[in-house]
């Protein structure tokens, strides 16, 4: 049990953190932002991290914001997953994050750390992916900027090097109007990485959207799949079968399950979710 060979910094302001990142880079260090540290410390222990300095963001007050801010719900990036669930400002987000890891670990994992995880899952992204109004508040060299989530999401949330997430917002009306279901399917144990995690939402106009984690090496939503799921002329089982056949990526084959098994589980889970969503309305 050797200490990780890391330098530790805990800035008090957004500017301090952003400037520090560049200063450390200029000094030939390899900084990384640090939220809950559950992934960084695991990687560091396995010598799998390209970093030698951590910038702990938890000292910055703006990153702890957790409120209805005018018409928007705002979630600071260092909020722990248990804080999100306890406050339950957006039940769809609660239902999704409450199935990540275990309770003690959820008290350590931060929202920002999950959204920017280097692992394939990033399950906290799913509710934001199915909403139209998700925005990111980002620290950049030119100050604090707003970015539409849809504009920076390309298999992952892509920020410029050195930029970091301050908070995520969604429109409160949109969030409230989404009827939702969030299901995580694991191979065997309740606590595990997902075989597939699915977030589905039914919008006010009756259309359905779904976002998936675990199916491929990144979370995604697909307009083609959403269109199939929204065709209520067909029974849920048929839509689920067609949706799985129309997925834009191949289902991964890994230790959690074979590609075929993933497809099978996704299909029956989707069918069940559609039935429950439609029964709800």
């Amino acid at each position: 049990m050797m200490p990780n060979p890391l330098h530790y910094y805990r800035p008090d302001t957004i500017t301090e953190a952003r400037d520090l990142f560049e200063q450390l880079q200029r000094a030939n260090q390899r900084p990384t932002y640090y939220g809950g540290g559950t992934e960084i410390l695991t990687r560091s222990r396995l010598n799998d991290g390209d970093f030698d300095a951590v910038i702990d963001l938890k000292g910055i007050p703006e990153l702890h914001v957790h409120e209805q801010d005018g018409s928007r719900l705002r979630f600071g990036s260092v909020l722990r997953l248990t804080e999100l669930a306890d406050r339950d400002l957006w039940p769809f987000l609660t239902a999704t994050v409450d199935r990540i890891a275990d309770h003690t670990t959820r008290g350590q994992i931060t929202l920002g750390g999950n959204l920017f995880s280097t692992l394939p899952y990033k399950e906290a992204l799913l509710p934001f992916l199915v909403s139209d109004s998700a925005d990111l508040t980002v620290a950049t060299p030119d100050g604090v900027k707003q970015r539409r989530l849809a504009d920076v999401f390309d298999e992952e949330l892509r920020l410029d090097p050195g930029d970091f997430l301050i908070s995520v917002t969604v429109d409160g009306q949109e969030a409230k109007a989404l009827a939702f279901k969030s299901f995580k399917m694991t191979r065997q144990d309740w606590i595990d990485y997902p075989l597939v995690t699915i977030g589905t939402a039914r919008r006010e106009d009756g259309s359905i959207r779904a976002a998936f984690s675990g199916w491929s090496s990144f979370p995604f939503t697909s307009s083609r799949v959403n269109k199939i799921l929204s065709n209520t002329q067909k029974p849920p089982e048929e839509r689920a079968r067609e949706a799985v056949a129309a997925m834009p990526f191949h289902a991964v084959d890994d230790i959690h399950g074979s590609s075929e098994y993933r497809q099978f589980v996704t299909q029956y889970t989707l069918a069940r979710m559609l039935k429950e969503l439609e029964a709800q309305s």
Partner: protein
Amino acid sequence: MKSLTRPEQISFNVNGEPRDVVIYPGETLLYTLRGDALGLTGAKPGCENGDCGACTVLVNEIPVKSCMVLTPEVEDQAITTVEGLQNAPIQQAFLDHNAFQCGYCTSGFLMVGHALSQDVDNGSPERTVEWLRSNICRCTGYQEIYDAVSSVAHPNG
């Protein structure tokens, strides 16, 4: 801004006492607690990967896996380890329910059970199950552990 780039002294409160310890910047709380300066070996290294919960301690009354926390993060905060439990009801409950075999996981489970016992108003069987899922017992004495924790976490059923 706090910065630690070499071994340095930091302060926190451990089991109700203020303590000053010299730490490396990248040291985990588990490492610091078990080191010579504090010698609190109740928190156990198991997986050191966040999976087993043998290293669980309380930080400001909340269970955390101490292998997944850097010690500088908990500067000036209140840490409770199993050594800090003095005649806590959870300890008697473990004895009454024979809730340990080899004992390696016990301190971690005790800390989760103790945290639950401090919030009985919100206690329920579901909550107990959910919190206990954070810890692994290789001897598989889960039923006895659940019974012991339930008796202090939701004593009225």
